[in-house]
Each structure stands twice: as C-alpha cells, then as structure tokens.
C-alpha cells in the first residue's frame, strides 16, 4: 500500500503545487485575446469599413460610454458611503427620463422644442433630475434606511424588489408601451469639426457628461458636504464624532446620484429616442458594469469604466467579430460587454482603479 501510493502522492503533490485554476484562466485569456486579435486583423484586412466609419463608431461609443459613466456615478457614490449596491438605480434613471417625456410632449405641442430649444432642453434636464432625485431619496428612506446594519444580502434583495416595484409602478402610471421622444430639430444632424462631421447628439452627450462629472468631482473633493460624504464612507462613527449628520449625508448622496441619473436619462433619450418602463434595466446593468470595471467607489473609475465599456460596445463587435465571420455582430453587444466584465473581475477583482484588498468587495 505504501509503495503504491508513493507515485500517487507525488502526483498529488504536483497537482497541489500546480496552480490549475490560474493556468486555466490564463489559457482562457490567451484564447480570447488571440480570437480578438485574429478577428481584428481579419476585419481590417477585409477593409469593409473606412476610417470614417471607425471614427464614427468610436465617437458614438464615447457618447454612449459618457452616459453609462454618469449613471455609474450613482452606483459608485452609494457604494462608497454605504457599501451596498443600489440595484434599483436603473429605475431611478428611468423615472426621470420617462416623466420628462410628458413634459417634452407638452413642449412639442406648443412648438417650444422648435422655437426655444435651449430653454426646452434645460426644462427637460431639470424635470428629469428632480424626479430621479426624489425617487432616489424615497428609496433610501423607505427601502434602505430601515435595513442599515442588516447583513449585506438583505439590502441587495430589497434593491431587486424595489427595482421591480418601481418598474411596475411606472408602468401603471405611464403605460406599458414604448414611446418615441419628440425630436428637437436643433440637435439633429451634424456639426463639422475640422472637416469631420460629428452627430450633434453625440457631442452634446459627451460635453454634458463631462460637465456633470466635473461638477460632481468638485462637490466631492472641494466642498464641505463632499468632505462629509468621504468621512461617512471611511468611518461612520468617527464622522458622527466630528459632528457630521450621517443620515443627512446619506440622503444627500442618494439625492445627488439620483439627480445625475435623471440628467443621464435625458442624454440617453437624445441618443436612443425612446422611453419605456423597462428602459432602466440594461443601462443600469451596464452602468454597474462600468462602475465595477473602473473600480467601484472611485469617481474617476466610473468615468473610465463607462468610456471603456461604451467604446467596446460600438467598436468591439465590428472589430473583433466581423472579421471572424460572425454574422450581425452588433447583436452580440451584451456578450462583449458582460464578457469583459467577467474577465476583468477574474484578473482585476478591484477594477482598474480600485484596491483589490479594500473592503470594497461586495
């Protein structure tokens, strides 16, 4: 028995020392990288798309990524202070954009969208942000505050429940149909940048998102309430010892994340032109992906993750899959987006800008 197991134990030792899991993962990554590279080379060789098409794909990716980034800020802010994932954040985003739809219709019927586009757009942003902010604050008050101190799984389940509750509440209010946003003529068409035509809505989304991100960054890093938010995120008890009103700070965090989601909702309808009660689901999930990609809890990470995801979504399928002979690659956008999420989580559990050994692991 001992002689027989000598070879066996040496084999077992080899198995124990050999990092099987790591090996499989690296192999997997290499296969995917090779597939992506081969597909890209084939696509570029075939020359099906001109440089202008690539540039357009890239810009629309940046535009879409900017919107993801702004929604992602809501996840990251709430996570940074409470260490919960507010999975109902997509519905907060939907609530503002959907409500603003009715305002847009009203404005359109008065001809305001044509005669006063800037004022109209301003009104839409304000309405959408206020509604989303209100929903986010109610959510904190009703769904999350009573559960503070409960195990982490509890608010997660609550979030999913709240998400469905909000979806079907708004379905009850506004109906089950998809509705086309009235067009604003002033932002249709293209602007020439140099001699290169860029769609106006793309440029507006990008610039709007940059402005929103800068305002948020300034609030968090330079203002008193921002300092209070960071303090509560690091050590709630000591923040209270410094005289910080912890409850008020948490409400503020939800409120500002909601307002950003509402503003992102308007940018989103500029890009995609329609609203429906389920519209929060995918943008919400993708923004969450963006937040995790960048490193959840990090404001810069949310921006980085959103941009990377947006660009991968528009450029990725055409570049990686088209040349590999995959038919209609743009239908596979979610596979690219969530495949990337899985890979990043395997190799960089903290995301690009998060610390992997931080307590910021859900």
């Amino acid at each position, binding site marked *: 028995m001992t002689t027989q197991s000598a070879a066996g134990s040496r084999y077992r030792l080899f198995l124990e020392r050999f990092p099987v899991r790591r090996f499989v993962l690296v192999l997997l990554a290499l296969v995917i990288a090779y597939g992506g590279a081969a597909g890209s080379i084939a696509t570029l060789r075939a020359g099906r798309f001109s440089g202008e098409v690539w540039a357009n794909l890239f810009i629309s990716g940046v535009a879409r990524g900017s919107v993801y980034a702004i929604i992602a800020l809501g996840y990251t802010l709430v996570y940074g202070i409470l260490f919960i994932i507010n999975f109902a954040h997509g519905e907060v985003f939907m609530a503002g954009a959907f409500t603003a739809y009715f305002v847009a219709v009203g404005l359109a019927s008065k001809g305001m969208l044509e005669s006063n586009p800037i004022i109209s757009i301003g009104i839409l942003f304000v309405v959408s942000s206020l509604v989303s902010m209100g929903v986010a604050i109610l959510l904190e008050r009703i769904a999350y505050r009573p559960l503070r101190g409960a195990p982490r799984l509890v608010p997660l389940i609550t979030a999913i429940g709240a998400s469905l509750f909000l979806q079907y509440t708004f379905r009850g209010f506004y109906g089950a149909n998809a509705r086309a946003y009235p067009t604003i003529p002033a932002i249709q068409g293209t602007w020439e940048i140099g001699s290169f035509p860029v769609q106006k809505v793309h440029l507006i989304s990008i610039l709007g998102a940059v402005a929103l991100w800068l305002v948020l960054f300034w609030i968090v890093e330079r203002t*008193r309430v921002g*300092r*209070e938010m*960071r*303090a509560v995120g*690091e*050590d709630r*008890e*000591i*923040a*209270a*010892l*410094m*005289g*910080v*009103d*912890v409850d008020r700070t948490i409400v503020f965090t939800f409120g500002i994340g909601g307002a950003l989601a509402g503003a992102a909702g308007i940018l989103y309808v500029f890009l995609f032109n329609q609203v429906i009660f389920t519209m929060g689901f995918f943008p919400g999930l993708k923004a969450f992906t963006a937040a995790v990609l960048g490193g959840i809890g990090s404001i810069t990470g949310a921006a980085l993750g959103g941009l990377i995801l947006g660009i991968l979504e528009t450029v990725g399928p055409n570049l990686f899959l088209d040349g590999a002979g995959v038919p209609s690659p743009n239908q596979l956008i979610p596979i690219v987006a969530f495949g990337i999420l899985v890979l990043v989580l395997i190799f960089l559990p903290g995301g690009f800008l998060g610390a992997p050994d931080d307590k910021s692991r859900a």
Partner: protein
Amino acid sequence: MTAILSVNDVDAGYGPSEVLQKVNIYVDEGEIVCLLGSNAAGKSTTLRTILGMVRARAGTISLRGEQIQTLSTQQIVSKGITMVPENRRLFAKMTVRENLEIGANMRRDKAEILTDIDRVFLLFPRLKERVAQKAGSMSGGEQQMLAIGRALMAKPSVLLMDEPSMGLAPILVQQVFETIQQINADGVTVLVVEQNANVALAIADRGYVIQTGRIVMSDTAKAMLANPKLRDAYLGELEG
C-alpha cells in the same frame, strides 16, 4: 456639584452583555482625570457611552448640568466635548489638512479655523511638514499627533482620550502626555483612559480604577501612585 462632566450610576453594554454597572465618575472643570484598568475592564465603553456611541441603559450623564444620555453623538459633540479615539481612527484616505478641517466640521468661523490649524502646527511641527500627505501613510506617532490635532480643531471644553499611549514608543508616550498637560493648561478639561497607570497618574489630578465594569477605586493621583494596593490588586500585570 459643579462637575463639568458627571456619569451617574450608568449601566451600558452591547447586545445581551452588560459591560458597565453603576459607573460613577465626575470631572471638574480644568482637571485631568484618568480612568485606569486592564483590557476589557470597560474603559473604552465608558467613553463611548458618554458620547452616545453606546446607549446608557440606566443612569444619567450630564455635561454642565444638562443631561445628555439620550442625545445622538452628533448632538453631544456640538455641546463642546469630543474624543481622541482608540487606535486614532483617522480618515486614512484624506490628507492631514483635510483631517484637521473635518475636525472643525461643526464650526462656521472660517478665519479662526485657519488660525487654529496654524496653532495645531505650532503644537506639532511634524504635521506641517506632512500637510498634503494622506493620513494613512504616516507613522503611528504622527497619526496620534494628528488625532489629537483633529480633536482640538473642534475647540472642545472637555476632551476624552482613549489610550493615547497605545502602540507608541516610550519616548513618544512621554511627548503625548506632555502635550496633554499643555492642552489642559490652555483650559481644556481632560478625561484620559489608560492601561499605562504610571504615565497617566503622573500628569493627572485624580484617578479612577475600573474593573469588570465597576469603579473599584477613586482617589487623588498622588495617593494612587503611593498606594501599593493599586499595583498589586488591579494593574499588576500591566505595569510597563
């Protein structure tokens, strides 16, 4: 009677466990009082109960005659009392300056806050050199200085200190206690919790000994230092 802070017959604990039983402590204005005891005797819980981080289940706590045992931490600190917590608990991701600024979070007098930051730098020149550095990247001694500086920024009239000597080299311990004397001389009343009885009694006016949640001895610091029973019965194994 005129105690600035008094804890009267207070019971407190966590969940089902009773930690404090009928604790009585008072601190007169301008005093340095130390609360001595071994590990898990209830020293930190006493301070945390005063600040409302742990709820008193029975008894009263008053600050300048006003009962505070039902108020929130935030309300209590607004009455001019604060703490240098155990293990310092700085905001590690914030800079030295931001930690000092958040210490003054309740104040609105911007100009005075700036002069008070300078005053902290005068007390701890090392902090000035590190003003833009993240608090988490500093040494233990520097962190203790910053924790004290942060507490002073609130301009407290009563300062609670939870084991300021913990984890510091002996020479730094001396420095910290000299600083406490200096702060006291500037008019701040101090209640300091310590395991290191000799150092604490050397600067204190009076002392208490707490053992398994009960105050078992109270006397002037001088008398306690001279009392062999203190060493033998309560603190023997902890003398450093």
